[in-house]
């Protein structure tokens, strides 16, 4: 037993760390770190740089542009990426639709889509959730009816993250209305430019436009855009969600935010000194750091166990990572909000032309939006209550 990395792994960590911090533009990383609004182009240029290096999709099969990295190397890569505040390669492309097409798609689909997925020439969005199908995803109602060489798709998708930028949507639609819940669902690729696709913004609790409703009104989709077999879409969705779970703890992100809180606390005036002199505040911070260290080791245990697991099946232990990881992400945003204090109330100072005294707290105007936005992490990707159900059933046998 040894918790240390091998010398080769340490060298690998240095290599990726240096690359992230020298090759990805500082302005983009600052936006990520500070929780500022990202332009489409920020995601694209960052992912292009990774893709040119061969690192956009290291977890993919080698023949499609993956790297033959060990589970530990993939873990180090993701942690360093997050700690350097590099935008995650677009998850819908790299962790969701890409692996599904690579695993279940036909050769024509692989050749057509995979290169453009990893380079982000095509931006993908996820068409799973519906107004009536959240945690109970299998109750989705969107229908795809076969007419000759096409499906005609009707329905409504929601919580479509960054759908306003999307070129394509991977969509779950019911192809056999007579079949029971999970059966009768197909995994279909929809060109967002198709007639009948309407994207309507949803402004979330942080005041930002991150998610959308997507209306599908008699959208005509060629049958060649069906992935795998008709009515087997639920299996592919489960595979995809297992993929989504890796790295869900976002430990690197929490570490990055804690490091930032420490930096800011040392210059944030409080009483006769700074917030760093406030032992109560630092104690609450330390409390989160301790739990985060425990989760980091837990994650390493899950990663180490991956070597001997079936990669297509979710590890129920990863539900721990989801539950604790999301709680800790939220806890760090609460500490950031607390650090900003009354200055967190200010919004849009830069636009209003702030003066020098206020510049000291120029960072504070994203503290509240980041706090508000991060409430989502215990809801998405299978809510924490669903994760509790998973552990109760799969591990405890209740």
């Amino acid at each position, binding site marked *: 037993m040894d918790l240390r990395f091998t010398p080769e792994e340490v060298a690998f960590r240095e290599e990726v760390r240096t690359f992230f911090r020298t090759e990805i533009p500082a302005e983009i990383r600052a936006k990520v770190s500070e929780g500022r609004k990202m332009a489409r182009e920020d995601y694209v240029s960052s992912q292009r740089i990774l893709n040119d290096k061969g690192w956009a999709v290291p977890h993919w099969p080698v023949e499609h542009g993956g790297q033959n990295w060990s589970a530990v190397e993939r873990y180090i890569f993701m942690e360093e990426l997050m700690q350097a505040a590099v935008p995650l390669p677009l998850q819908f492309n790299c962790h969701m639709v890409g692996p599904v097409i690579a695993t279940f798609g036909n050769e024509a689909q692989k050749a057509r889509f995979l290169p453009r997925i990893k380079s982000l020439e095509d931006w993908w969005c996820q068409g799973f959730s519906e107004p009536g199908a959240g945690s109970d995803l299998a109750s989705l109602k969107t229908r795809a009816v076969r007419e000759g060489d096409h499906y005609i798709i009707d329905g409504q998708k929601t919580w479509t993250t960054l759908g306003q930028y999307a070129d394509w949507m991977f969509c779950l639609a019911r192809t056999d209305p007579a079949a029971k819940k999970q059966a009768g669902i197909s995994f279909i690729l929809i060109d967002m430019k198709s007639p009948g696709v309407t994207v309507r913004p949803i402004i979330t609790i942080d005041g930002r436009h991150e998610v959308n409703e997507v209306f599908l009104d008699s959208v005509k989709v060629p049958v060649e855009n069906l992935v795998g077999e008709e009515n087997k879409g639920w299996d592919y969705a489960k595979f995809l969600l297992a993929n989504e779970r890796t790295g869900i703890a976002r430990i690197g992100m929490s570490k990055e935010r804690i490091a930032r809180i420490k930096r800011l606390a040392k210059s944030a005036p409080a009483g006769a000194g700074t917030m760093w002199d406030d032992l109560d505040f630092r104690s609450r911070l330390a409390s989160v750091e301790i739990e985060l260290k*425990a989760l980091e080791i837990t994650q*390493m245990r899950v990663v180490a166990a991956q070597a001997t697991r079936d990669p297509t099946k979710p590890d129920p232990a990863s539900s721990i990572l989801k539950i604790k990881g999301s709680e800790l992400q939220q806890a760090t945003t609460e500490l950031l909000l607390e650090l900003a204090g009354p200055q967190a109330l200010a919004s849009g100072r830069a636009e209003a032309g702030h003066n020098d005294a206020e510049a000291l707290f120029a960072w504070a105007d994203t503290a509240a939006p980041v706090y508000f936005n991060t409430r989502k992490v215990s809801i998405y990707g299978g809510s924490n209550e669903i994760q509790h159900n998973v552990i109760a059933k799969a591990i405890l*046998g209740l």
Partner: protein
Amino acid sequence: MDFDLTDEQSLLKDTAQRWAADTYAGIEALDAARAEPLGFAEAKWAELAELGLLGLPFAEADGGFGGGPVETLVVMEALGRALAPEPYLASVILGGGAVRLAGTEAQRAALLPGLIDGSARLAFAHSELQARYDLNDVATTARAVDGGFRLDGRKSVVLNADAAKTLVVSARTAGARRDAAGITLFVVPLDAAGVSLTAYPTQDGGRAADVVLADVFVPADAVLGAVDGGLPVVERVVEGAIAAVCAEAVGLMEALTDLTVEYLKTRKQFGVAIGAFQSLQHKAVDMFVALEQARSMALYGGMMVAAEDADERRVALSAAKVQINRSARFVGQTAVQLHGGIGMTMEYIGAHYFRRLAMIELMFGDTPYHQRRVTDAGGLVAAA
């Protein structure tokens, strides 16, 4: 990065778990052991010696088996799982730890063979009434006299002192009560003139004693380690003990979580097993999550015991203890809650796990104490 046990370590784990499970199969066996004058049966201690567990952390040159931190974790976790009352912590980890870290060859030769073969136990008499968790707070004095020292003072809640043949005692040879320098460790036979014990059971089913030292003479060669330089040894001994109780707590929490889940599956109310209720399922899951977080930090603490850098070691063990304490409290309280009335009774073994976990929280530093140490060190994540 590797979480696997070696073949030898796996074998050790099997051996320790099998012994503990066979020996303490139920509450009757535990009650019988606790009814013994010393709180455990000599015959069982002899079995631990035969299995080689008592010599585990000691060098082969000293008659031991040269085991490292992982071996200690494995054994402590197994003892925890079974609530074994044997004084492994007091004698092997604490008393034995001091001799292992600071003893001369002659002292090791005099004390370790008896410890390893089970015939002569040690105890660690350091803490005093006023000290709480501050290891530097020592009021007991040692005056240099012709041919040795004379010790005066009181030691408080010395674990299993009544089962020991020899005490490792800390006393002040220089400086004021709370000075870091000036503490010296001594080897003191329990039957030395002027040593008296008041022994009692502890709240977790073990035993301890308050020790009075009244003008106790020890020869010069009873000094363990450097005169005035005992504190770093005490700190390392206690760090080893923290790692050990963290592992023990993981064993306790694992057993208690298993017990609780089993109860949820068998206890029926409203015509169904109560484990069918989602509110109870989710609480059981939270116990499991707390257990796994504790397991991770026990591994971390165990690894860091051997770290060279004292500051790094200190903050790591404090972080580990905070996590274990929090998990222990949550798992213990939730187990009692999910059991309902039966969880409140001494006739149910789950209650005994809860009691031990609650007392471990208070040993070698409670949650606020260790959280403050992590805070003072600036936390665990580099500010960059």
